[in-house]
């Protein structure tokens, strides 16, 4: 590579007029420079990986560290302050020890047991949508993000963690600040500190008055036994709270919008709900909402896709590119709810850090989309598609709002 040639900046924006497409640069990079040096917002550089096979091999390679304090970790544009104690920033074997304290709450079985509750919450939120629509008359519209996509996962994770849902305005607005590309590093750090202070206060409350929830369990069974520090408990709670509502919320919005624009797929799903789990995998693949990573730092010299990467250099894995790699997914830019290998997507990441809450996310997506399809078969956008505000300014992609009617 010509060292004098200016590096391309880390691609973050969808092509103009194509909000469902990942950054256009990926297509060429996958073919020409699948492991490519890119410049980061702060002027540093990192390796950008764009191929499915390379990203999978890097994310399962122990020579790449998740520790943000490892030399060369690409921190630019991420919020890393106070994140050192977070599970997702920990390497094996410590990572496994910490993760196993939580896995039992998110097993396929535990999530199955929650399904009825998730359905009830979804039904109540849909009742509210109907009420609001009736009140507003025939021309009324409802913002699907505010009325269902965001409150459903927020309510469920609050319930599981033991966070009072009345405090949602606080944690939702803090999360929005933390995940914004347009806010400054200082603003994001401040927001993160606020959230930690809030959760610290909550942890103290659980010490005195435990409930039947994850946070109480961590405090009483782990912190008191000396297996976790208070800071680690707060760090875990921060991670679960942010990851638990923001990601699924955006997938519900994008999933609903995709089905509204694909009436044939919507009809097929209404006729045969057993297609829904596969459709959810395909929607996860197609949208790949995590747009800032995962990121790692090499702690030894590694070769990825023929490219040597030295210890102390950082990588950014473009999951949205991997999931559109035609080598892995033929006709990758088309939504095919019957795609045979859709579940091979890496929208939940890959390797030991793969999303802990993926079964819960799947259940929330299946139930919410299924309910929308059956209760509102006439569901449609209340604005032009071009007017939908997409979250190209955020680290997690989606819609800021989704005005719908029926």
């Amino acid at each position, binding site marked *: 590579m010509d060292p004098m040639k200016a590096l391309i900046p880390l691609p973050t924006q969808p092509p103009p007029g194509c909000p469902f497409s990942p950054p256009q640069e990926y297509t060429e990079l996958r073919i020409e420079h699948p492991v490519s040096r890119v410049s980061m917002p702060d002027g540093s550089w990192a390796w950008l990986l764009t191929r499915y096979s390379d990203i999978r091999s890097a994310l399962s390679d122990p020579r790449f560290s998740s520790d943000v304090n490892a030399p060369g970790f690409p921190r630019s544009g991420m919020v890393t302050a106070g994140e050192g104690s977070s599970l997702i920033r920990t390497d094996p074997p410590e990572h496994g020890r910490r*993760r196993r304290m939580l*896995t*039992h709450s*998110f*097993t396929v079985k535990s999530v199955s047991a929650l399904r009825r509750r998730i359905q009830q919450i979804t039904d109540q939120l849909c009742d509210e949508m109907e009420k609001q629509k009736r009140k507003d008359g025939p021309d009324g519209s409802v913002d699907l993000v505010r009325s269902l996509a965001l409150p459903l996962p927020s309510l469920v994770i609050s319930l599981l963690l033991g966070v009072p849902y009345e405090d949602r305005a606080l944690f939702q607005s803090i999360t929005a600040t933390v995940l914004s590309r347009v806010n400054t590093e200082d603003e994001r750090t401040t927001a993160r500190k606020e959230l930690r202070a809030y959760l610290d206060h909550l942890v103290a409350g659980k010490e005195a008055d435990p409930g039947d929830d994850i946070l109480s369990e961590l405090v009483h069974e782990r912190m008191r036994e000396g297996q976790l520090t208070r800071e680690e408990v707060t760090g875990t709670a921060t991670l679960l709270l942010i990851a638990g509502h923001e990601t699924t919320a955006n997938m519900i919005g994008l999933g609903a919008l995709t089905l509204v624009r694909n009436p044939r797929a919507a009809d097929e799903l209404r006729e045969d709900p057993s297609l829904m789990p596969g459709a959810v995998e395909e929607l996860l693949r197609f949208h790949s909402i995590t747009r800032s990573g995962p990121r790692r730092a090499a702690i030894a010299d590694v070769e990825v896709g023929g490219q040597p990467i030295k210890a102390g250099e950082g990588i950014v894995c473009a999951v949205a590119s991997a999931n559109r790699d035609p080598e892995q997914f033929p006709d990758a830019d088309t939504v095919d709810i019957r795609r045979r290998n859709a579940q091979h997507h890496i929208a939940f990441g890959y390797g030991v850090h793969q999303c802990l809450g993926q*079964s819960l996310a799947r259940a929330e997506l299946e139930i919410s989309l299924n309910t929308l399809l059956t209760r509102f078969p006439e569901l449609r956008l209340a604005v032009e598609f071009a007017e939908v505000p997409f979250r190209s300014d955020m680290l997690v992609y989606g819609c800021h709002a989704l005005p719908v009617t029926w």
Partner: protein
Amino acid sequence: MKISIDTDNCCGAGQCVLIAPEIFDQDDDGIVILLDPTPSDEMHDAVEDAIAICPADVIHVE
């Protein structure tokens, strides 16, 4: 086909349970349990899928 699993390195993602619940389950801590180490022929595709998807690469066949 004879399946073996490496429970020490299982990260409890649960994908194998979704793909082949006849073959794989999770214990109370989310760690993989092998229900049937020698599945019938018609299950082989599902097992291959589970192997390909397992994020921690802990399912192996002989």
